[in-house]
């Protein structure tokens, strides 16, 4: 409990090296087991029937024909998932999203499900379920949905956060506001003002592994769930609450996860699989198809953002203002709120105001996607910042450096910053050879900054020392990108042993205490803190055991470089005892040696990045090509630098896809028209260049090794950096993401026509 998380500025021997990950061999040989790779005896196949309508009242569901089909073992509707949420509005939304109760709220909304002896019979059974819909007017556009005359999605919702409670319901669920100073006064002091509106389209996290689980509910109320998730403990809580199970009797095992990026922080099919298993009395495997993943899981918000920034001739920003409208799907969310907090976080502003509006639309429930909501806000703000720099006749990097936040700056979202890395990333970019490389015709260079909070949270870790001196580390955060390697490095560092002596695993919910969701870039930050704490607890025991073996007071024993050392000249004849020596005798010195840690990892350090990219645009077709890309980001301390680089590169690639290609396209009928990887095109290998990275290390004062989260910030700058590059290449300000070839051509045509 007396764990001191403060940064101590030590020298490292394991941390900062680049060993092979412990789970690697299983992943290159095909042995690693993901969500769909697990089976149980007597298992049935579950399938979900989904609404083809964007908005419809479910008048009646007749399942009788499906139930009679040979091989069908259970058919369920919302009636089989009674409302046990007890006034918890957020849980009710999760329940309703898992299985529509009275209305289908988007194309793809689940309305019924079957479990059958094989996939063919299950598919056949879905066709036999008759649903009587009363189709309602729908709305999928974020701006149209916010209008007064728009079809109402939920007539119980009145906009929160207004000075006076509104008399009429609205699709706008909430207004939030952040900032300080007086923007009117600030704009009055400005010599130049840029004011623009921007739009971004909805994207999907696009993990390659569809949602998959195997659920098994026993008649005695015990249950097992095998599932690909970013947070098996949170899934356990949600499923237990929705199914009326006792949490400790539901054992959830997190499979290897084939990508999440925020999209596997949310239950969809898991409560349905459990309900099917409960009704059928057999295990049920439920795997989403790619079409279902697009139509019914994920996506981000679509957004519409107005930005206004003013500056004096000397380049000082005098005021900044933004209004952000974010789509939430058909359920209330806080997505615009995050956008409003992050929008101007990179800058030192005397007068700043942001207002966010959460907007309901008939699209899937918005889920987190890597630094959720921040990339869109950064796109709008960083585009306007670039334009203002041009108007001032200042270099875009110098303009940002002049206005960058630093230690002591009041953040636009409220508090005062501690030591932060925005200035150093900008200086690194200014001096980077990429900024000086020549450009050819039709090529443009852009740069942009990004910010993300990073989270900590409840974390629990067990460290067990075997009698042969090997160490097993059980963690409760899911390994989404190599954290078992980084956490093994941390355990090795703290114990003073070799990395190869440590084996890290992700424990199931019955083997370890509760852990929060692996989100907010917290995996390595939080679990490394818990691992350090667990290792220090184990060292106390190791010292005690060494003292017993030597028969001296424990206070005379210190732990150095993996050995117990008797301190003082009187012990000159006592050779150091290695961890292995002490472990070998553990049976007779008090039994197994272990270190545990349960803590709240708070104080995650905020993170900043600056990206540079070069884009070539074909003015005839509007086609774009990324020529060169560089990421500079503060990691606090890179525990395993190769995987830190991997996070930087992966986030940049996702941002590139979002900026140039990816978008949900809805027809007038409210149906998603591109629910597959052929028509929703994520970047492939031939679309991208190598992605250069530069890791900066500005220690987080609230972590013993200085670690900050690194996973999310890298997706924040790309939309803006690429928009700035395209705008510079074609000489027209791009204001609508993605900048697909038709949109670029339309912008060029509009410019020609004046």
């Amino acid at each position: 409990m007396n764990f001191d998380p403060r940064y101590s500025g030590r020298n490292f021997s394991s941390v900062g090296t680049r060993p092979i990950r412990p789970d690697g061999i299983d992943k290159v040989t095909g042995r690693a087991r993901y969500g769909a790779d697990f089976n149980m005896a007597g298992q049935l196949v579950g399938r979900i029937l989904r609404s083809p309508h964007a908005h419809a009242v479910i008048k009646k569901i007749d399942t009788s024909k499906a139930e009679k089909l040979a091989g069908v073992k259970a058919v369920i509707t919302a009636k089989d998932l009674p409302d046990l949420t007890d006034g918890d509005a957020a849980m009710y939304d999760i329940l309703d999203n898992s299985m529509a109760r009275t209305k289908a709220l988007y194309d793809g909304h689940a309305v019924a499900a079957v479990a059958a002896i094989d996939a063919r019979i299950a598919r056949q059974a879905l066709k036999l379920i008759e649903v009587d819909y009363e189709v309602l007017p729908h709305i999928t556009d974020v701006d149209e949905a916010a209008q007064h005359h728009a079809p109402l999605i939920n007539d119980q919702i009145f906009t929160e956060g207004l000075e006076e409670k509104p008399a009429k319901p609205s699709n706008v669920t909430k207004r939030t506001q952040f900032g300080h100073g007086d923007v009117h006064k600030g704009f009055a002091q400005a010599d130049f003002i840029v004011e623009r509106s921007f739009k971004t389209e909805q994207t999907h996290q696009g993990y390659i592994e569809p949602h998959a689980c195997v659920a098994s509910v026993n008649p005695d109320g015990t249950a097992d769930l095998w599932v690909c998730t970013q947070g098996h403990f949170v899934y356990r809580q949600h499923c237990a609450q929705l199914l009326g199970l006792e949490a400790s009797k539901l054992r959830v095992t997190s499979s290897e996860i084939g990508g999440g990026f925020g999209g596997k922080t949310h239950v969809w099919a898991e409560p349905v699989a459990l309900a099917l298993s409960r009704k059928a009395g057999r295990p049920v495997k439920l795997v989403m198809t790619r079409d279902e993943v697009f139509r019914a899981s994920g996506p981000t918000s679509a957004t519409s953002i107005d930005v206004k920034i003013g500056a004096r001739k000397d380049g000082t920003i005098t005021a900044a203002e933004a209004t952000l409208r974010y789509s939430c799907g058909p359920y209330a969310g806080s997505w615009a709120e995050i956008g409003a907090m992050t929008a101007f976080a990179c800058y030192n502003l005397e007068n700043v105001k942001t207002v966010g509006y959460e907007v309901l639309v008939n699209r899937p429930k918005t889920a987190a996607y890597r630094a959720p909501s921040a990339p869109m806000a950064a796109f709008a703000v960083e585009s306007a910042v670039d334009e203002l720099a041009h108007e001032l006749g200042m270099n875009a990097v110098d303009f940002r450096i002049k206005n960058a936040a630093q230690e002591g700056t009041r953040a636009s979202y409220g508090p005062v910053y501690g030591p932060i890395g925005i200035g150093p990333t900008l200086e690194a970019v200014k001096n980077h050879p990429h900024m000086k490389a020549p450009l050819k015709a039709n090529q443009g260079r852009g740069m942009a900054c990004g910010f993300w909070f990073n989270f900590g949270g409840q974390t629990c870790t067990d460290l067990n020392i075997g009698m042969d001196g090997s160490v097993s580390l059980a963690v409760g955060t899911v390994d989404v990108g190599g954290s078992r390697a980084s956490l093994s490095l941390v355990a090795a560092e703290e114990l003073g042993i070799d990395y190869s002596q440590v084996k890290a695993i992700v424990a199931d919910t019955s083997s370890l205490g509760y852990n929060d969701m692996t989100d907010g870039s917290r995996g390595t930050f939080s679990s490394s803190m818990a691992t350090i704490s667990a290792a220090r607890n184990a060292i106390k025991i190791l010292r005690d055991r060494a003292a017993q073996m030597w028969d001296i007071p424990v206070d005379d024993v210190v732990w150095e470089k993996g050995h117990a050392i008797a301190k003082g000249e009187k012990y000159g004849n006592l050779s150091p005892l290695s961890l292995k020596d002490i472990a070998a005798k553990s049976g007779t010195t008090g039994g197994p040696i272990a270190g545990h840690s349960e803590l709240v990892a708070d104080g995650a350090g905020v993170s900043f990045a600056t990206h540079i990219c070069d884009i070539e645009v074909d003015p005839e077709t509007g086609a774009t090509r990324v020529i060169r890309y560089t990421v500079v980001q503060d990691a606090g301390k890179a525990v395993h630098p190769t995987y830190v680089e991997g996070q930087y590169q992966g986030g940049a690639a996702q941002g590139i896809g979002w900026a140039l290609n990816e978008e949900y396209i809805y027809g007038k009928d409210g149906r998603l028209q591109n629910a597959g990887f052929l028509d929703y095109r994520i970047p492939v290998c031939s679309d991208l260049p190598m992605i250069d990275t530069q890791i900066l290390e500005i220690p987080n004062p609230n972590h013993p090794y200085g670690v900050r989260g690194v996973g999310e910030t890298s997706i924040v700058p790309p939309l803006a950096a690429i928009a700035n590059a395209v705008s510079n290449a074609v000489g027209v300000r791009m204001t609508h993401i993605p900048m697909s070839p038709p949109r670029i051509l339309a912008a060029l045509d509009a410019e020609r026509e004046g």
Partner: protein
Amino acid sequence: MVEVTLWGSLSAVAGGKSRHDIEAKDIRELFRKLAEQYPGIEPWIDRGIAVAIDGTIYRDTWSKELPPGAEIFLLPRLAGG
């Protein structure tokens, strides 16, 4: 006594005031006193409020002490990806 600043939307349920002087030794006491003074804040606390103390954001450590003279700022508790 510590000076606490609330973010825009929260100040709307705290008498429209963004700055409050409150006698509280830690986050738990701060939340309790705020809720006593402004009952409208309670649902917000249940939904989650993060506390920035001198720029470091605390989301769950309610035992965290509030040092005199510290910069205390309340923020919404956010979701991540």
